[in-house]
């Protein structure tokens, strides 16, 4: 048994190792994804270009403008003469927000204790617009409390906001767990879903069937090299996120790796199940891409929060293995919780693995399926 198993693993390893193009994708994909998400695709807002209409031109308005210009969220792209030019600036696509300070802003503030400014935002991208306006409001609020310094206000509520676990509001805290789920899903499920069906297609299955090999041995031996590959990928993603993106691992590293391997095994057994029920590589690939990759992206909570989904989608999201894993990674890696909190999620993944494995062994055809 042991020799058969090792020989089979060795053979699988040769298939993977000698297919350089696929190998390159297997190792390159996680690195490229982490780097793209880390540096190119980010929903953090930094250095947004804005325009300012300063019709007041006094000391107070100048101090407000300086305050805005010195924040890391905004860069002042241009000064406009009046509010009518704002439309043109938006249409040229140069700026995302226009701040209009009306005439006598400073003096009206001093004498009537009331000053109005207008903030126009380009809401063709609603998320950016609302984020930018709230940043602008925060800056103006800060400015206002500076003005009030030393004076006693009749009522004042000051919310003291602290962003826990991710004080700098870095996007990496959100996407690293997502990328880990995606990459492991892709490598483990997509690659193994082709593994058995490929033998059916090339005809080598016919020879394997007329041999003493047991189905369970074939399934385990085929998954083993991919489990090793996923371990390497987990390691490379974690190294990149710690050393390149500066994301610390708050919880136990061992727990994180152990649960990532559990998720890999769940994905591998799902891939095997697909491989045993399909009869062409194309079908297997299509099922894993359309049927698994998209739900992983959409329903794991990585792209869109599950809490906001309609009930049917919420229910469906429970059968997506990545949903549970995404929660585990976020909890362990970012919040630093232990197994005590996430044992339920880990149990769900374990049960899924057992079901997938059981089904794929049951569905493994010991004879040729001819139509």
């Amino acid at each position, binding site marked *: 048994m042991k*020799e*058969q198993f090792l020989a089979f693993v060795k053979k699988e390893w*040769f298939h993977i190792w000698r297919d350089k193009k696929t190998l390159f994708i297997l190792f390159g994909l996680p690195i490229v994804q982490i780097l793209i998400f880390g540096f190119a695709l980010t929903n953090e807002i930094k250095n947004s270009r804005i325009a300012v209409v300063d019709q007041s031109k006094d000391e107070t308005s100048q101090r407000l403008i300086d305050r805005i210009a010195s924040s890391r969220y905004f860069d002042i792209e241009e000064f406009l003469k009046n509010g009518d030019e704002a439309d043109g600036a938006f249409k040229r696509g140069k700026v995302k927000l226009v701040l209009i300070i009306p005439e006598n802003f400073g003096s009206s503030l001093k004498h009537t204790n009331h000053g109005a400014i207008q903030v126009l935002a380009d809401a063709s991208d609603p998320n950016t617009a609302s984020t930018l306006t709230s940043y602008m409001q925060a800056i103006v609020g800060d400015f206002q409390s500076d003005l009030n310094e030393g004076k006693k206000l009749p009522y004042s509520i000051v919310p003291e906001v602290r962003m826990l676990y991710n004080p700098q509001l870095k996007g990496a805290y959100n996407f690293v767990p997502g990328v880990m789920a995606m990459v492991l899903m892709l490598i483990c499920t997509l690659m193994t879903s082709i593994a058995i069906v490929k033998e059916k297609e090339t*005809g080598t299955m*016919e020879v394997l*069937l007329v041999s003493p090999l047991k189905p369970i041995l074939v399934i385990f031996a085929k998954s083993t090299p991919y489990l090793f590959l996923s371990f390497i990928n987990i390691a490379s993603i974690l190294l990149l996120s710690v050393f390149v993106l500066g994301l610390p691992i708050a919880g136990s590293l061992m727990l994180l790796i152990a649960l990532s391997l559990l998720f890999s095994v769940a994905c591998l057994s799902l891939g095997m199940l697909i491989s045993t029920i399909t009869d062409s590589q194309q079908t297997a690939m299509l099922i894993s891409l359309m049927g698994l990759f998209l739900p992983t992206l959409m329903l794991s909570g990585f792209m869109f929060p599950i809490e906001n989904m309609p009930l049917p989608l919420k229910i469906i999201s429970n059968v997506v293995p990545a949903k549970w894993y995404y929660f585990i990674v976020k909890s362990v890696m970012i919040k630093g919780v232990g197994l005590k909190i996430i044992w339920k999620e880990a149990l769900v993944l374990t049960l899924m693995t057992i079901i997938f494995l059981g089904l794929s062994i049951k569905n493994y055809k010991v004879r*040729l399926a001819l139509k």
Partner: protein
Amino acid sequence: MKSISVNNLSKSFINGKETVEAVKPLSFEIDKAELFGFIGPDGAGKTTLLRMLTTLIIADTGTATVDGLDVVNDYKEIRKRVGYMPGKFSLYQDLSVQENLEFFATIFQTTVKENYHLIKDIYDQLAPFSDRPAGKLSGGMKQKLALCCALIHKPTVLFLDEPTTGVDAVSRKEFWEMLKRLKEQGITILVSTPYMDEASLCDRVALMQDGKFLRIDPPSQIIKNYSKKLLAVKGKEMFPLLQHLKQIDGIEMAYPFGEYHHVVLQNDATSIDQLKSKLQSTQELEIKPATPDIEDCFIYAMQNN
């Protein structure tokens, strides 16, 4: 105990709306260490029959045993002891010759060393290419490697599905010599082939067409049983001659055969001169008696099926 015993075995496939009877109920037995050939054109049912015997598909009716083991109930035990070489090249193309051989030895829980004597003659020819990926071997070399891999666990019965299709004449000859030597080691060999000339190399052959056996006998017996008078005819314009021959009374069959046309006479009493006068041919003809070979027997059997 017979090596293989088949009783009323049949198999149909559903192809769209119609049901195709790939193998009609067949019964036969094969002795230990017999070299048995299934000869027939493409689509005769050879592969389906071999797949039923190698436990790969389940028959609709009938039973079969291999080494006394039932092909349905004892399939696990059968798979340990038989060797099977499918019609399509089915080794790992990205693995080298050596790696393929070692892989198949290990999954059959043996080693290349243990049964090297069985494959030595064949493997000696492959040895210079032992590091080459199997996918980059020539057609003949591929088949030799596949035979090695099917033999490496010293099977009691060897099933070969069209092992010589796509292989050059010299390699084919070598291949059959190897099969003869394997037979001497006590291995029962079932081989299917579309090539008539290979039939005479078997101990017994089954002529197959449309899922039926037309004859099942030693090749010499099949030829001996050919009762018709056979003539060979040659002229300058071969094609019009064939058309002409087919229309003449007293000729049961006419078909091209090498550089001659073979003509089967309805009445054995018809002489060459009588035929010549009937033909009234403008071109000069060479007509002579011909000795039937297995192909003539097969064509005649097919025609009268």
